């Protein structure tokens, strides 16, 4: 009796089409505020950092501080932050809820964008992956919402949260 193999091999060069991935919006800033501090009206908390403060933040966090990306709000029982980090291939904005004593209570990703700009736009480079034979065609132009493939790291979000906590310590907790 013929038993079909449970392993299917597909030569990658023979796959029919390829398209760049991926952008996803999960929550707006307002939605994240409502999720983390339901029913509250949050008050913007300006982060006035001097050049010296920024030097301390960068030393403590071990990452660059980019003015403008980080914003803070005061809630009745904590603080709400929004920040964005740029990795080599992606841009992630995220929201963080801190307790009144500066502990991370919740982190939510707001927006995730992958950017393999140069290589994906380079037609000659793309051609090696596209259209050499038939296969199970990828439907071009359709929204790609779910992806499998080896894991991409979220390490720069972790770095961003460390930086955010350093900013909190200097700009909010010590004032």
């Amino acid at each position: 009796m013929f038993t079909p193999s449970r392993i299917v091999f597909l030569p990658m060069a023979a796959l029919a089409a390829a398209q760049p991935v991926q952008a996803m919006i999960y929550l707006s800033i307002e939605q994240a505020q409502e999720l983390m501090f339901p029913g509250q009206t949050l008050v913007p908390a300006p982060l006035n950092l001097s050049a010296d403060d920024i030097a301390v933040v960068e030393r403590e966090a071990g990452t660059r501080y980019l003015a403008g990306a980080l914003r803070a709000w005061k809630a009745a029982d904590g603080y709400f932050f929004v920040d964005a980090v740029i990795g080599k291939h992606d841009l992630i904005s995220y929201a963080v809820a801190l307790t009144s004593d500066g502990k991370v209570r919740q982190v939510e990703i707001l927006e995730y964008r992958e950017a393999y700009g140069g290589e994906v736009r380079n037609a000659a480079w793309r051609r090696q992956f596209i259209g050499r034979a038939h296969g199970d065609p990828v439907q071009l132009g359709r929204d790609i919402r779910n992806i499998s493939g080896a894991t991409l790291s979220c390490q720069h979000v972790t770095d961003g949260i460390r930086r955010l906590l350093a900013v909190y310590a200097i700009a909010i907790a010590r004032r």
Partner: protein
Amino acid sequence: MPSQLPGVDRHAARRSSIRRARPLLGTRVEIVAAADFPAAELHDAVDAAFAAIERIERLMSYHDPESELSRLNREGAVRPQRMHRDTCAVVRAALEFASLSGGAFDPCVAPWLEEWGLLPRHGAARADHAASWRDVEILAESRVRFRRPLRLDLGGIAKGYAVDQAVRALQRSGVRNMLVNAGGDLRVVGDEAETIALRSPQAPGLVVHTIVLRDAALATSSACYSRRRVAGVEVSALLNPGSRTPYLAAGSVSVRAADCISADALTKVVLFADPQTAEQALKACRAQALVLQADSADCASHA
């Protein structure tokens, strides 16, 4: 007051659907949930599912010196160690997949990954490089003992378990339709089929294949994302337990199975077991594998 939350619409029917993501397990974990109850309750259900994943990360992180796994690695060869129910379930499953695959899946190859800088060293006693899964002994009452000083690493299986536990948490909250995706190891549950795109392992910005998944899990392994040079030698986070050499090919292996812990572990079985053993392991788990074969060894474009 009209809620700002997604899925909440005062005038619409009660069916809600939300999609959220958190940075967990070193990657982006995404949960999509739909149910016939108010969106605020659906958000609570998703919170509980994320909490389940956070619990598993706290217990089984190799990177966190405070995790239960790190305690096992410090003390497991000294005296028997008690394990949390979740840790015990994952260790037990890891040993089952090791046995099923004749050691092609082995959760004890971490000393090499430590040497290559792919896993941290927490200053525990020297690990015995000759140790394997056979030196891990599960005792009564959720305790474990290591017969040699070794490093247990659940990185090849805990992510799949975390996805399954998030699914369980959602189901306990009454959610019937969901998708949980932990950096590409994912599971779809419910009435609706989902289209899953597979990345090109050589060029992760491109999708080269799609799979339609319904009530099933899918996990993918590729060496492309962890390949690096250490002291002039090319290494990766995927180590062949038989030959003790890093897997460096540019292809990827995706496995479809009923649950994500099986899919996750079986990708490594397909990578490293001989074809007959891999076929048998897949059959025993009613799983299938899809291997994307590269025509060159190049995955430098995103190194």
